[in-house]
């Protein structure tokens, strides 16, 4: 193989693939990145046998070939390189990198040993705007269960219907749901559960300035394709809980409150919350929202926030993290907090937007 690449191209490509590489895997080749010439471009691949990433970068190819090299070494080497162009060539299982005054040989492994990343031959199932998907993911993926003892809810739920994509995640104590518009109508209704790890990887490499993300499915795999990158992953087998039935339809109290105000108050209260992170929220008509926390050791705190309260006076106890997680990611200046009583789910929605909802269960004391 003989290739000349710009350093920037190579760096971008390596960033895409460098994150999913296995670490310390007994099978050496899984710790490596595959570099391969592919119809006029350079293809970089990596996998941890759960997720696989392929990306293509431009370069001048004078001789075809392929090799795998340890991901950590090539990544850090290229990141550190101050020069503009790199020429890559292989001799048996060594990768030679020449760039002005930098001369390097990296020991690699034959490309034949590299796992075959499964291909999906079907047509694209759905197409969604990249920025829209990125926003949707940022508002939902953190709510999934971290414990894998219930595999279904450890993943993120994707439901496609007509021209809508619904993304949801829950850990049984809270639920985040976001709807996105698809670019085209899908041919059939489809519901899948995708591992959290895959989605957070996708989120990280979904840079801004991309156009569309295409989504493909096969038997038990999902593929996301955007610009020059593909990310493929297994799906989680199972039935996602039918969460629609726990979303309350009617609320007793609605509070419109400044997001920043509420976050400041919650963070202040968090310092005085007991070990179980409990803080009390009280909605009082005409007055606003009162946030209270106290613990035997730290002391106590009360913050009054101006807010528009409609309906009954109400109060409930929450884990402050559950509220902050959601408030942190919303871009709107004001949110609407909806309550029923201290024992029923409460809802947070951004003011003036109806494609997002977040539900948290109050803590029982």
């Amino acid at each position, binding site marked *: 193989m003989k290739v000349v690449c710009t350093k920037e191209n190579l760096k971008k490509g390596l960033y895409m693939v460098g994150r999913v590489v296995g670490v310390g*895997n007994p099978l050496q080749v899984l710790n490596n990145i595959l570099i391969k010439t592919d119809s006029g471009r350079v293809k970089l691949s990596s996998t941890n*046998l759960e997720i696989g990433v392929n990306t293509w970068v431009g370069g001048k190819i004078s001789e075809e070939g392929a090799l795998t090299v340890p991901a950590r070494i090539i990544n850090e080497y290229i990141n550190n390189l101050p020069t503009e162009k790199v020429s890559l060539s292989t001799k048996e299982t060594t990768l030679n990198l020449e760039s002005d005054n930098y001369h390097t040989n990296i020991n690699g492994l034959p490309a034949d040993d590299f796992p075959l990343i499964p291909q999906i031959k079907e047509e694209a199932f759905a197409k969604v705007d990249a920025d829209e998907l990125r926003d949707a993911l940022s508002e939902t993926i953190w709510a999934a269960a971290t414990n894998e003892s219930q595999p279904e809810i450890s993943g993120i739920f994707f439901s496609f219907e007509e021209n809508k994509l619904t993304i949801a995640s829950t850990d049984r104590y809270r639920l985040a749901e976001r709807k996105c518009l698809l670019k085209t109508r899908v041919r059939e209704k489809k519901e899948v559960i995708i591992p959290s790890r895959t989605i957070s990887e996708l989120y990280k490499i979904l840079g801004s300035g991309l156009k569309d993300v295409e989504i493909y499915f096969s038997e038990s795999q999902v593929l996301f394709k955007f610009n020059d990158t593909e990310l493929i992953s297994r799906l989680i087998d199972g039935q996602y809980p039918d969460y629609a039935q726990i979303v309350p339809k009617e609320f007793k109290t609605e509070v419109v409150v400044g997001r920043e105000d509420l976050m400041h108050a919650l963070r202040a209260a968090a310092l005085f919350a007991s070990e179980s992170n409990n803080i009390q929220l009280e909605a009082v008509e005409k007055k606003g929202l009162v946030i209270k926390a106290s613990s035997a050791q730290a002391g106590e705190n009360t913050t009054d926030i101006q807010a528009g309260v409609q309906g009954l006076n109400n109060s409930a106890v929450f884990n402050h993290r559950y509220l902050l997680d959601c408030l942190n990611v919303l871009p709107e200046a004001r949110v609407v907090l909806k309550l029923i009583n201290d024992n029923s789910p409460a809802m947070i929605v951004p003011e003036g937007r109806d494609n997002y909802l977040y539900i948290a269960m109050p803590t029982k004391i």
Partner: protein
Amino acid sequence: MTNQQLWQAILGNLELTLSKANFTTWFKNTSIIEKNDLGIMVGVPNAFTKEWLQNKYHLEILKTLKTIAPEIKEVKYQIINPTLNQPPPARKETTRTQTQKTENQSINPKYTFNTFVVGANNQLAHAAGIAVSKKPGQVYNPLFIYGGVGLGKTHLMQAVGNEICKKKPDAKILYVTSERFTNEFVSSLTQGKSENFKSRYRTVDVLLVDDIQFLAGKEGTQEEFFHTFNALHQNNKQVVMTSDRLPKEIPAIEERLVSRFEWGMIADIQAPDLETRLAILKTKAREKNYDLEPEILNFIAETIQTNIRELEGALNRLMVYCQLNNTRPTIEQVKSVLINVITPPKKRGVSPKKIIEVVADFYNVTPEDLLKQSRKKEYVNPRQIAMYIIRKELETSLPSIGEFFGGRDHTTVIHAVDKIERAIKEKSGLKQEIDLVKDRIYIN
């Protein structure tokens, strides 16, 4: 050949030709999920493995298959849900905090006094356990708990550990089985690290040793244990031991150890009576958040009489059955679900030879000793017990038992059975001993 055996045979062959890393990466969690006249379907955990087996190892798998099962011509691969094969991950948090406190030997946090059901059968042991956990090292040191299989010895001992741990979180509590003690001792000798071993065991505040009877016949380990014991006892550190019988009755254990075991407090746990069994069932059902009719609990408690583990097993079985079928059980269903538990297919696979082996092992003699003509006392008693068990359990005819024991007369057998029957009535310890032997016969 079953699917599993066939696949094991294939893997055995492939393992020789591949590197270990390759083999474990690509063949972990694979199995044959379907087999018919023409081909097999291999279940693989993910698409990567599927691609790899299809493209790289297909020929080798076929070749191996040809030598083992030539009639099979075709191999296909299918992705199966990997989560079904994996045990759920351990609850990390609880074990993490526990292991810090108790060195690397985890006391199971679910064994506490709260979950221990007290009845007439274990009152004494329970009271002793509580006393010890209140003032470790000061009252009853050592505490020696003995009783049959599945009656709660380990539970009680770990409860002592957990309780002390709760009161003094920085106390060093070490829980080992005597088998582990032996293994660590032996490996410390072979690695020349006996100092480490000594300091590890002699600096703890509480030492819990499970199934101490397995020290029998291991002289070197016994000596080490003797010194460990002395060191701890001298410094008023608590030692708790369990065994399946009285110290005196453990064969091949040194006199000086026996006398030390009897030094503090010896508490026994007997099989629970009906009321206790019922209480245990109720507690277990509540723990699992499972609500059952009182008649059903009664039925289970009445039918399973000796072993608490079986009691819990029956309850679990019932729960799974009902969850699968989504019904509430009726008494008839319970009977059919528990038929295997209640009347276990015991007799299957038990032969006079096996009984003789277990009895010989239990009394630390060889099976030949039992068969030969010697009339030494240490052989006669086990021999008679073996005859008794064979007669009672297998209902073998008297002459053929005699035949089995080196051509003895059937009257000898009659005498043996009568004698043991009488002895059981007179000595309560003997019944327990024989029950233990029976347990062992049916466990393996």
